[in-house]
């Protein structure tokens, strides 16, 4: 069975197994993994199983939740990952068969992050989360947040084989400030762009007009899972990765 081990520096603080119930992490003592540090919010993050995968979700903490140095709002955990909250970290041991984690499916899905009120304290936020859950919207919302948008390079010269779209604005080009860096002579600084909007990811033109699934785009085009984007001799697959 998968388990989480709360560590402070090299010392083991507490270890809990991950069952069907979410594991709460935070400064408040009623968390499964209470972390006694002022940098940690009362209800800072939680870990739960969803569709056979282990997921960590930041509960809008002030100082953030980090998985292996990367700040995350929500991320899938793998065996050996470390979740950092303040100066503590939590080691993820999922060496057991992950499919045996119990598929809680949509029931395990978590309420959306919402800003329904201007009050910032964690109690209000917790109430809000519960409220949203009661409204029955959580499954729908969580389903759309499950996956990580990724550009996988199929062919062409770039600095990486795969790009996880973490920013709202992604530039494909030769510029050293571009996310997807094109290599080679005569490539434009800003060839095309992929931008996040409220309802999805849109590919737009730069100095070149990208081609999506064989057709040049006529304006910003919303990308669907599996779409093939071509620009400047670069072919990429847009996918929502688990």
């Amino acid at each position, binding site marked *: 069975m998968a388990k989480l081990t709360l560590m402070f520096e090299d010392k083991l603080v507490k270890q809990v197994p991950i069952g069907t119930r979410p594991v709460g992490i935070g400064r408040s003592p009623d968390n499964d993994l209470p972390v006694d540090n002022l940098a940690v919010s009362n209800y800072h993050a939680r870990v739960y199983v969803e569709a056979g995968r282990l997921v960590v979700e930041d509960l809008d903490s002030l100082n953030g939740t980090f998985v292996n140095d990367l700040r995350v709002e929500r991320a899938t955990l793998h065996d050996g990952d470390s979740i950092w909250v303040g100066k503590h970290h939590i080691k993820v041991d999922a060496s057991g068969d992950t499919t045996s984690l119990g598929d809680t499916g949509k029931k395990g899905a978590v309420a959306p992050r*919402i*800003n329904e009120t*201007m009050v*910032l304290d964690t109690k209000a936020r917790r109430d809000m989360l519960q409220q949203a859950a009661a409204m029955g*919207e959580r499954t729908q919302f969580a389903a759309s947040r499950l996956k990580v948008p990724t550009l996988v390079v199929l062919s062409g010269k770039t600095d990486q084989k795969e790009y996880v779209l973490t920013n709202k*604005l992604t530039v494909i080009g030769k510029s050293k400030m571009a996310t997807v860096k094109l290599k080679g002579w005569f490539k*434009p600084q800003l060839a095309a762009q992929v931008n996040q909007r409220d*309802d999805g990811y849109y590919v737009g*033109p730069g*100095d070149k007009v990208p081609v999506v699934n064989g057709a040049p785009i006529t304006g910003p085009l919303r990308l669907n899972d599996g779409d093939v984007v071509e620009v400047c001799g670069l072919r990429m697959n847009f996918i929502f990765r688990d």
Partner: protein
Amino acid sequence: MDIVSGGVTNVGRVRTNNEDCFRIVEPLNLFVLSDGMGGEAHGEIASALAVETVVQHCQETENDPAMTIFGDMPAIWSEKTKRLASAVHLANKSIYDSAQAHPEQRGMGATVTAAWIDGTRLSIAHVGDSRAYLLRSGNLQQLTSDHSLVAEQVRRGILTPAEAERSDMQSVLLRALGAHPEIEVDSEEHVLFANDVLLLCSDGLTRMITEPEIAGTLQADPDPAKAADRLVQLANEQGGADNVTAVVVHIGGQSKGWFSWLRRGPRKAVRKNGSAGGK
């Protein structure tokens, strides 16, 4: 980078007072816009206070970088982004305090959208439903998320963007400066590219004219002040139901290095693209 900017605010064609307020601080490349709300003249007080506080705090921190940062900030943010978010926290507090001290001002509030450009880095801090847009290669991208009920419903998939535009709940804000002693500020950082155009605007603009119209107008006029003027004019032509404010910022294509001649090609291409996408 060469930065040229211009802004216009206008009362609109229906209202009698202008509760919008903006400020361009050229030496700092700081741009602040606020849309006030509240009865009588209090919306004006709130928006002026918001803009004033943000500008003042940013100016002071330029002289005294050791000043305290208000609110909790992620370590990954740049100094400017933290400062800007901190300034918005302060603006919230000054509006809230003012409303507490003057009972007749109760209920006043304001949105704020602030942009600070430092080299190629753009810092944004934002509360409410005023917006920041980035026009890049003819592609208009909204940078800020509206803190309005309908926008939240779109994000949750309850409404489609089209339904949201028709909704009569558009004025319901989920977050605004001045309502609570503490506030959550949205902040973000982006890398700017040559020829990017930044637009800050109040909802009086975005509710009157469409995004393609905004994109077209921004591309059509190379002078930011004139483009801002034209945007406001368009909003008024289409009803002008609310105060309208637009601040347009052009990021120049000037290169810093000796290799600047290399960039001529792409820049020309962008210009071509730009005029083609205009009217």
